[in-house]
């Protein structure tokens, strides 16, 4: 499927649950609402024309104003790739786990929980992961996080 075919197919199938983003450069990038996340994920996984079986990556982003979460999805059988994005406020940031759909999301979500402080609903193992067990200095990937010994690179002109 080409970019256009995929975009048309997805927008027809999900209607206003998806919103195509301009920022996506090479693969379709869709903004979705977080209450639709698990539903859409299950749908794209089971859809005969999509069969999105492979979760490439989940990454959280702190834009300085909001949290974004990006799901990079791929289909091995159909050779398709597109991305989904969620946007949410800092306050009470929470997202459903998609590990029922793709088990490998477990670690990505755990990492997100630890480094960004985004709560994951229905996750079976939210424990310390990359950081030391006794870590108490907050969520280091946040833009406003500064550790006492954290040196920023000098600005280049």
């Amino acid at each position, binding site marked *: 499927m080409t970019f256009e075919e995929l975009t048309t197919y997805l927008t027809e199938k999900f209607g206003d649950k998806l919103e195509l983003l301009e*920022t*996506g*450069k*090479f*693969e379709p*990038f869709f903004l979705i609402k977080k209450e639709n996340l698990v539903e859409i994920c299950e749908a794209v996984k089971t859809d005969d024309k999509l069969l999105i*079986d*492979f*979760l*490439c*990556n989940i*990454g959280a*982003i*702190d*834009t300085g104003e909001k949290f*974004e979460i*990006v799901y*990079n999805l791929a289909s*091995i059988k159909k*050779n398709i*790739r597109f*991305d989904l994005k969620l946007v949410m406020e800092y306050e009470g940031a929470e997202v459903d786990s998609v590990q029922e759909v*793709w*088990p*490998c999301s*477990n*670690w990505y979500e755990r990492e997100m929980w630890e480094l960004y402080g985004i709560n994951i609903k229905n996750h079976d193992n939210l424990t*310390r*992961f*990359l*950081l*030391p067990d006794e870590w108490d200095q907050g969520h*280091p*990937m946040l833009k406003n996080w500064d550790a006492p010994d954290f040196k*920023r*690179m000098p600005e*280049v*002109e």
Partner: protein
Amino acid sequence: MTEGLRTEEFQVNMGPHHPSTHGVCRFILTMDGEVIVRAEPVIGYLHRSLEKICENRTYAQCIPVMDRFEYCTSMCCNEVFALAVEKLAGIEVPEYAEYLRVIMMELNRIASHMIWYGTTALDLGAITPFLYSFREREDILDMFEMTCGQRLTYNYIRIGGVSKDIPPEFIPKCKEFLATIDHKIDDYERMLTENPIFMVRNKGVGTLSPEMAIAYGVSGPSLRASGIKYDLRRDDPYSIYNRFKFDIPVCHNGDCYDRYIIRIKEMRESAKIVRQALEQLPNAEVNTGKMVKANFKPAKGEVYSRIENSRGEMGVYIQSTGDTKKPLRVKMRGGSYNQLQVMPELVKGVKIADVVAIMASLDIIMPEVDR
């Protein structure tokens, strides 16, 4: 009768400093005698927060950081980041530089598989193969050294091209290497492939079904060993891979032995690609591309680029706001991350010796997991 008998489970801490965890990975193994009941990987010992570091650097400064992401195949790490930024900014890479990139990446893949071959044999108790494979890896590293001055973290593939042209002695050296590599791989195979002890240690051990492999995001050679013919070089071609003819080896059992066979075959295929690339290398124009400046700002946008690394799909997600010199977010994805995640499922009920064999065959390397 057996009801009266009860064996006590005990916990063994495998790692973080353990000879065969390929970096500093720790497994908390709950064992019943020699049999694993549960395994819980504990990671983070190599966490250097590369993603956060990248957020505080300009795009060009991120390339050396990417080197450290997966130091066995630094060329591929450079490439995946450069590819993503080139997509974002719409930079065209000259053909000559693309060929150099492919040659370097494929040589690097061979070198990485040689590390894997040596450590696999080492983990199974055979020490000699390790030194054989490192002998040939040395030749590859010499070639890299004469090209970019580095032996491990190359910083060679840059945004917009490659850092410098290959020296004149590179091509004869590379041709000499390619002339003997098949014979050397035959040597490797003679040491392990048909060895009965190696076979009983690997056949039927750590069987990964295709469904489970996909569900856990296992990619690369480990996925192909489970019978799924999926290689990003063919299925989602990046750079100029669609110009080369090469086979994608596939096996069907998904056990450690198949993962071994796949990687051995892949070394030969990579050599094939390098041979073709050297033949097709355009001699007329030597254009290694124009490097980006420090104040380079790609347009607003986000991209997830992925390439086929020796350990599976390596991806990097970059978001650029368009008005700063620094990426807003760089998220790295390495193949080992998912392969380590599937380990607890694979090692249930096997012996402690198999844990080592399975981990070696999945070719897990810790810097890629911890970042």
